[in-house]
């Protein structure tokens, strides 16, 4: 039985070695903050961290997760106090919210490597899809969380 370390806790999991990590997290461990979107590693709703790197868990087999440190949205902070979570609330980023746990996990991986990312770095990291179109607020929140002033709003008209 493979043992998984998720959010600092060890779990024994009985599942086929090829089972996507996403389904182990959601259905075996009950960590339903990580969402299923496309199932082909395209949308990013299923993003978690494996050893601190963003990984699309719908395309990550259970066998590859053994011995690695997995972090889900539930483990990003104990009390929703991660700078990104605070910034997400301050900027009122989510609309329906479905993609946002993946967005947050991708953003957290970005800030871990680039504490003050440029707009270009944000754009190339944040390729998660959002049907509500929250992209501008996502960028603002990442800038806020990294201690950078928000970029000027684009004037319309």
């Amino acid at each position, binding site marked *: 039985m493979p043992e998984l370390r998720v959010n600092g806790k060890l779990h024994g999991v009985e599942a*086929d*070695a090829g*089972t*996507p990590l996403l389904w182990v997290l959601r259905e075996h461990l009950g960590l339903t903050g990580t969402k299923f979107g496309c199932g082909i590693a395209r949308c990013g709703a299923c993003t978690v961290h494996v050893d601190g*790197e963003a990984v699309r868990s719908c*395309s990550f087999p259970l066998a590859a997760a053994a011995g690695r440190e997995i972090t889900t949205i539930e483990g990003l902070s104990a009390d929703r106090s991660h700078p990104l979570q605070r910034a997400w609330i301050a900027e009122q980023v989510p609309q329906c919210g479905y993609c946002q746990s993946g967005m947050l996990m991708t953003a957290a991986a970005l800030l871990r490597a680039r504490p003050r990312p440029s707009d270009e770095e944000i754009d*190339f990291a944040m*390729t998660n899809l959002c049907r509500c179109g929250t992209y501008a607020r996502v960028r603002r929140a990442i800038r806020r969380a990294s201690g950078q002033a928000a970029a000027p709003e684009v004037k319309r008209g």
Partner: protein
Amino acid sequence: MTPSRRLHAAGHPEPRRRSLIRHRRSTTWLAALAAGGLALAAAARAQSEGGSPAARVAVEGPVVGGGAAVGGEAAVGGAAARGEAAPGGAAGTRAFTGIVAVLRHPRCLNCHTTTAFPRQGDDRHPHVNLVRRGPDDRGVPGQRCGTCHQAENNPASGVPGKPDWHLAPLAMGWEGLSDAQLCRALKDPRRNGGRDLRALAEHLERDPLVAYGWDPGAGRQPVPIPREELAMLMAAWAGAGAPCPSAGTAAE
């Protein structure tokens, strides 16, 4: 069964397709070299003139991926006349024609780009998701190659995988090169990862990531000839002195 259960079930790996490579008799490039370069050059010629269908495709078929084939005997003769090919160069250059058909195949060329991004598909479109090369050829923070590509092909998601998935360095980019330029680049240690011909042949025959070309996963075409045939062509090319086609015979 709920949708999620169905997806869960779909996530279980399918039985591996029997690998063409695994079930073929292995002919290593070392063994091929031991058999003698000239003999292999003759073998490559024989293949091109009526050997296996795969070999005929490799030597005579169109180059996939935007490249152009060298000009056959005329080109080889011209190169030899200008002293650009070593003795036995005709067979060697013919072998290179087979090699270059592999190198220009989308499974290889899509990650041997000269761009800041990889490509995808047989139409070689830029990789979706704004994927970038990044400073270490493995993506950028937040979106590394390993964000999606794992050590094996994933039958559930369809995402291909091999260990340490990454782009070839920019110095090893082959897009836009003529056959002659690509040939020189292939032999240049500054542009081939510091490899001599022996190491180059070994890279093509054994590198786990290069193996992707022959095991691309469902829905993708593998490179046009078996890996051991590429090894034989490499041995024939090396045995003939690794001649290059003359400059200007073909350009992408």
